């Protein structure tokens, strides 16, 4: 019985809080953390909308699929293009209805549901004080002596690892099994996620790590350390894009639309480089911060759309698995 007044009090308190509308945004863990782009974006959007933006973090797509139509999410941000097929087929998402002609992506983009907010390319990062002659092509990497130590991520547990097997598939096609066989002796190990790999690289456990073309920017801008570079390959680099989408079942459609539109604004986009450490999806290069403008970028950008990626995925992973299991 004693609990009753407390519960009643809580209910009153909650109903008072409902006065300010709440926009619930599902995001990957890194995004909403203190060290990701989330907090800045939250403050900027709350200043515009007079609402309360609340992030819910965790495994984005599994959680949404588990919750189904009951989800509290109004918007979900942080999808990767290689898994959007599954997301789209769930029918949980609604078209954003925005004009996306202002996008500055290096690939054609016409998706009416998933809206890009940043991009980068897969790349091997190395320490330019230790490896003086940069590798200029994937072929050169395959032919490099076997004492070059690489660490990569597992395509079965990591999105960047998946991007690598698709990249290999794009460059080598039918020959990817042979290409993997040449690369295999140089691969020190495979890690579950990006963090383990990158930690091993910064510890000196590997000469090169699978990461992104934008990774050196972090070291240059935040640490004033110009020693990390991305090896730019002639064959081209695989495109990695992060996307946001509005939930079809949102009970805050206006706010959700406002947020989706906010993604394309200069205010949002200019926060991306130095908090997400990637290229903004809709901002001309002239407005990029120093350190990003100078980053070497690949001339050729390779990309599989979601249908191609879904169709090739199992085969590409199997090529990787059988070559590295020898």
């Amino acid at each position: 019985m004693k609990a009753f007044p407390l519960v009643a009090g809580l209910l009153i308190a909650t109903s008072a809080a409902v006065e300010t509308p709440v926009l619930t945004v599902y995001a990957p863990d890194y995004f909403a953390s203190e060290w990701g782009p989330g907090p800045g974006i939250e403050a900027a959007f709350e200043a515009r909308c007079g609402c309360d933006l609340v992030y819910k973090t965790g495994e984005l797509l599994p959680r949404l699929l588990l919750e189904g139509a009951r989800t509290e999410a109004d918007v979900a941000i942080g999808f990767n293009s290689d898994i959007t097929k599954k997301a789209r087929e769930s029918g949980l998402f609604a078209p954003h209805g925005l004009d996306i002609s202002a996008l500055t992506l290096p690939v054609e983009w016409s998706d009416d549901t998933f809206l890009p907010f940043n991009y980068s390319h897969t790349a091997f990062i190395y320490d330019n004080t230790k490896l003086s002659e940069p590798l200029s092509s994937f072929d050169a990497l395959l032919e490099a002596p076997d004492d070059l130590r690489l660490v990569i991520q597992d395509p079965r547990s990591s999105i960047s690892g998946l991007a690598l097997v698709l990249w290999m598939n794009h460059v080598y096609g039918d020959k990817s099994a042979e290409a993997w066989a040449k690369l295999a002796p140089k691969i020190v190990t495979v890690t579950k996620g990006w963090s383990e790999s990158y930690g091993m690289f910064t510890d000196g456990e590997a000469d090169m790590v699978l990461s992104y073309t934008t990774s050196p920017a972090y070291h240059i801008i935040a640490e004033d350390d110009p020693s990390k570079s991305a090896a730019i390959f002639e064959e081209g680099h695989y495109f990695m894009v992060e996307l946001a989408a509005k939930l079809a079942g949102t009970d805050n459609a206006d706010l959700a639309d406002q947020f989706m539109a906010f993604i394309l604004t200069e205010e949002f986009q200019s926060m991306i480089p130095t908090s997400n450490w990637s290229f903004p999806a809709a901002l001309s290069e002239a407005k990029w911060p120093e350190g990003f403008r100078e980053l070497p970028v690949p001339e050729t950008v390779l990309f599989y759309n979601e249908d191609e990626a879904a169709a090739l995925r199992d085969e590409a992973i199997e090529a990787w698995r059988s070559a590295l299991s020898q």
Partner: protein
Amino acid sequence: MAQRALPIGAALLVAGMVILPVTAVFWRGGGPGTLGPADWAALRFTLWQAALSAALSTALAIPVARALSRRRFPGRSGLVALMGAPFILPVIVAILGLLAVFGGNGLINRIGAPLGLPRLDIYGYHGVILAHVFFNLPLAVRLILQGWLSIPAERFRLAASLDAPVWRVLERPMLRRVCPGAFGVIFVICLGSFAVALTLGGGPRATTVELAIYQAFRFDFDLGKAATLAVLQLCLGLGAGALALRLAPREGFGTGLDRLTDRWDGRGRLPRVIDALWILLAAAFLLAPLGAVALSGLPGLPALPAEVWSAAARSLALALGATALTLALALPLLSAPGEVAALLGISVSGLVLGTGYFLLLQPLIRPAEVALPVTMLVNALMALPFVIRILRPGLEAARADYGRLAAALGLTGWRLWRIVYLPRLRRPLGFAAGLTAALSMGDLGVITLFADGDTATLPLQVYRLMGSYQMEAARAAALLLLALSLGLFWGFDRGGRANAAI
């Protein structure tokens, strides 16, 4: 009647707490999934690496525990406490610590290279086993050390006065009783290995069932397959557990007067040297990677962000809650069916368990609101098998030694526990509580599915920092985690050993 109803009820409750969520995942996934050849390969690898890791950890623990049981030296209790640490480190931190010593650019290679020694390559099956021994040797040492301490001092005295071989009459029977349980528990832990096996195994050859579960869950969203694999894990764990329990004989050594043990048999020069060598080797193997973790964490410590401290406070509360819950669940489970039921909790993938609870709770309540209680519960379920393994021998001994006397005096229920059992279980209780607290401190568990931005635990913050290039802060946070876990472990363990000359 009531005496029997409680343990059986508790065993059923714990089994239900594992089986229900797994069933929920099955149901949502639409029935069992199909397994491919790669999954069976993963199953084979999982099995043999777990068996080998458990066998090696247990075998190596025997001489170390024996040395620790019969030597007194300054810093001994500190060393015994520190040895609990590898077991409780977050995986990512432990990997980097191990690589700092055994890696290509690690301590051993940096010392060895100028001396012309061949380069040590850690990556491969041997790396997986090395890492698993690193994690589990301390647990095995503690479990076996307890066995040694359970032999009454009077027995050694008797053996010495009869000039009887201590190894044959006392130690070997004790090991036969203790080792199968230690092996079983470690085998089950290694069944669930994933990131360690993959990273140190050097790639997809070292694929475990847990990785296949993660893939099914995260990329394929094939819940049926995830649940099928989880049930396979569960059967393996249960099989191993049941076998271990069956192999272990029951008889004990009878009671003693709790006098300090004096070991007449270890007085020669050779036994001294051998014991010292084993202790030094074990200490170096376990402490060097921990030292590397601590050293790399120091520079970032002063600048640790506030979020890390609040996460630390949350993790502490979580650990203490999980400890209380685990002990409450464990006491009625100190029986053979209880131990088998408890093995369920650690056999099954935490990811599947978490998903199951998510599915069960989501229609009733917002998952974020129960993030911490659910994490606590899952942590408690994971810690139960260790706690029971630690407590059961003590309780059975107390029952055998004092049960008849207590019955004659009419002691039952709570009074029996308070007067007879709890004081005799004090030492294992302290160790069990310390282990649970430290384990829940370091566990990432199910929090990733339930957590909001503001319910992050300390291990989660370590991963977040690493994911945002903040390697220095991540190392400092890892050091904080290590220190807090050790502090909790040491505090409880010490509490259990107060007034005991152990």
